[in-house]
């Protein structure tokens, strides 16, 4: 790799000597916001699945009731 490029990458990562403060700030922000998002999406999926299961159960009972009524 080009030496100038790797030097500029390490200068960027060094953040003028503040790497230990800058990168954790961005990393913690990313972890917390992505974590909140994923937890919310998972919760929504689980409620959707639970509602679908309940409705299928009710549909099956209703179907069974109608069949019994016809007989």
């Amino acid at each position, binding site marked *: 790799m080009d030496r100038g490029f790797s030097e500029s990458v390490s200068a*960027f990562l060094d*953040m*003028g*000597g*503040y790497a230990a*403060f*800058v990168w*954790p*700030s*961005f990393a*913690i*922000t990313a972890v*917390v*916001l992505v974590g*909140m*998002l994923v937890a*919310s*999406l998972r*919760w*929504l999926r689980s*409620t*959707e699945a*639970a*509602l679908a299961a*309940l*409705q299928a159960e*009710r549909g099956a009972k209703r179907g069974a009731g109608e069949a019994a009524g016809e007989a």
Partner: protein
Amino acid sequence: MIQRFANPNRFMRLSAAVVPWMAGATMILGAAGLYLGLFQAPADYQQGESVRIMYVHVPAAWMALFCYTSMAAASATALIWKHPLADLAARSTAPIGICFTFLALITGSLWGKPMWGTWWVWDARLTSVLVLFFLYLGYMALVNAFDDPARGAKAAAVLALVGFVNVPIIKFSVDWWNSLHQPASVLKLGGPSIHPSMLAPLLLMALAFTTYYFWVLLVRLRAEIISGKIRAIRLRQVHG
């Protein structure tokens, strides 16, 4: 107008259409803000590269106040007009707001150590934001503290409204008291005193955090409404 959005069925249709737009906007604005903030914006002449912490710290702090204000407004709407979605909106906002408050405190600490020489000081700005964190925590504990969800919502709504007095205290704390924290440089009389090359990534990140809030809020509201439906079906099953 409000009544039209109050209908949960209409809300479910509307939010399903809006969520992908909020998701897309968050990613595009966030990517643009990170690119400008990390690669294009200059280092500060006093603070050096550590000033880049601003691009996450300031939007997080703004959103901590924005979420609390939304939560208080939704709580007032719920108490006064018994709006069916207002309680759910307040309840769904609290966990997002506490995340932003936590981030404002942590990134502020990470910025304070190299610039002020300390992780924490008990001055007006930092202490009032810590109080905000505990207000969110109290709200979330109270809203789930009762067997009857309506009673929990009412008690928590009162707490949210009483605690709102803290929001202007946070905003003006840097003017009213001596603080290590610097005063406002964007939201102030006379316009922003910050260079456009730093203002652009700051505003892009703030917009990204705002669309993120609406994205997660809508996802959580949908989950709350479906949970309510499930509770109603189970109750009907129990009571025949």
